């Protein structure tokens, strides 16, 4: 089944599912996959820290990297995923051009992700982050294959 992850959203899937997200700009797209259990999940988080809007974080934790990432891992564990087998990949975290620090939300998203993963002893297997581009991510849960598309350009992650 094809599942769509909206901005500030998370979806998990099993063999036969494909999970897609569109328009990853400065948002973080995080894909985790257990190649033995053939289960996985994708998060599309918009902002680094939930303390900016606790009320919103209570209603929708997936909007924030610090809240969404732990829930994604738990959801995949619930499907039978095991931490030691997980393949973790990140995409997105782009920024507009120039040096305006105000708009470096993508970089801040990435920093918070790295801290979280480091604290929990999880490594990123692959990443395509940064740049002034918008990415679409296709995540095939049968194979674990992650494909990124930008404009007319498509590549594997």
């Amino acid at each position, binding site marked *: 089944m094809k599942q769509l992850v909206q*901005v*500030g959203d998370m979806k998990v899937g099993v063999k036969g599912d494909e999970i897609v997200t*569109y*328009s*990853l*700009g*400065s*948002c973080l797209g995080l894909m985790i996959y257990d190649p033995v259990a053939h289960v996985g999940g994708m998060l599309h988080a*918009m*902002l*680094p820290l939930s303390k*900016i*809007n606790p009320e*919103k974080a209570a209603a929708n934790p997936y*909007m924030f990297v610090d809240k969404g990432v732990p829930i994604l891992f738990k959801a995949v564990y619930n499907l039978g995923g095991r931490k030691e087998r997980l393949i973790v990949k990140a995409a997105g975290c*782009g*920024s*507009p*051009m*120039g*040096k*305006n*620090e*105000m*708009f*470096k*939300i*993508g970089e801040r998203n990435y920093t918070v992700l790295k801290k979280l993963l480091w604290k929990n002893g999880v490594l990123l297997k692959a990443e395509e982050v940064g740049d*002034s*581009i*918008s990415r679409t991510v296709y995540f095939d849960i049968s194979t674990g294959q992650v494909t990124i598309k*930008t*404009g*007319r350009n498509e590549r594997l992650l």
Partner: protein
Amino acid sequence: MKQGRKREIISKMKSFPSMSGIAAKVLKLLDDPNSSAGQVEQLLKQDPSLTANLLKLTNSAYFGLPSKIGSVRHAITLMGWKKITKLVMAACVNSITDRQILGYGLPPGVLWEHSVAVSVTAEGLMRELKIPEGDEIFTAALLHDLGKLILGAFVEEELDEIEKAAGNGIPFQMAEQEVLGTDHAEIGALMLESWSFPSKLVNAVRWHHDPDSAPETSSTIDIVHVANVLCLMIGIGAGVEGLHYEPSVSATKRLGIKPTQLELIASQTLQWVKELTDAF
């Protein structure tokens, strides 16, 4: 050659059907202190789809009215003159932007959603920064990308060249200028000028990617600029050009905005957009 291209684009712009004739008359009526709700209602009756859009917007969750509004007259009484003007504008913009935009790779509905997103983000930023809300900010934001409706077909033809130019490190609208002799901000402003829109609106559209080049800087231009970049970043309306625009450091300084304020607004934008667009 570029000049020839620009002339071709402008001539196509001139043949673009103007916003519904009724809409223009309604906006004029709303601008006239002596007009009445009854007159506005009479006029709107001649354009049922505009009226339907207007009522959908009025009844959207964004405004949180306690009961459903079924008539234009009731809507005017409840919302007030200024809000109704904005909503008539939004109803018109919906009818022309709610389609696929060639060249920029925007599927149907995305430019409309982006236009609404920039409008509510702009209003949110005004409130957050405690800038007295000008009537024009919502409309300026709503119309900022109008030029894409015309320029899209030309961008489609020259996309390789434009992407090549942008690849050399210049923002997308400058790449459009380099290849086509004009860009979507300039074309949008020319459209509004030809429809006799107020210069404040024309300028906000004209300089939404380059607020520092405006003959006179203004918070309206700066806010539309910031709101637009923010919406693209959070994935509302980013097309082939992605985030290939450069936010002005001076504009954010002029506004005195902090990163936390920007993030707070970003955290609310999605819900505001959903509330307004779910009505359609």
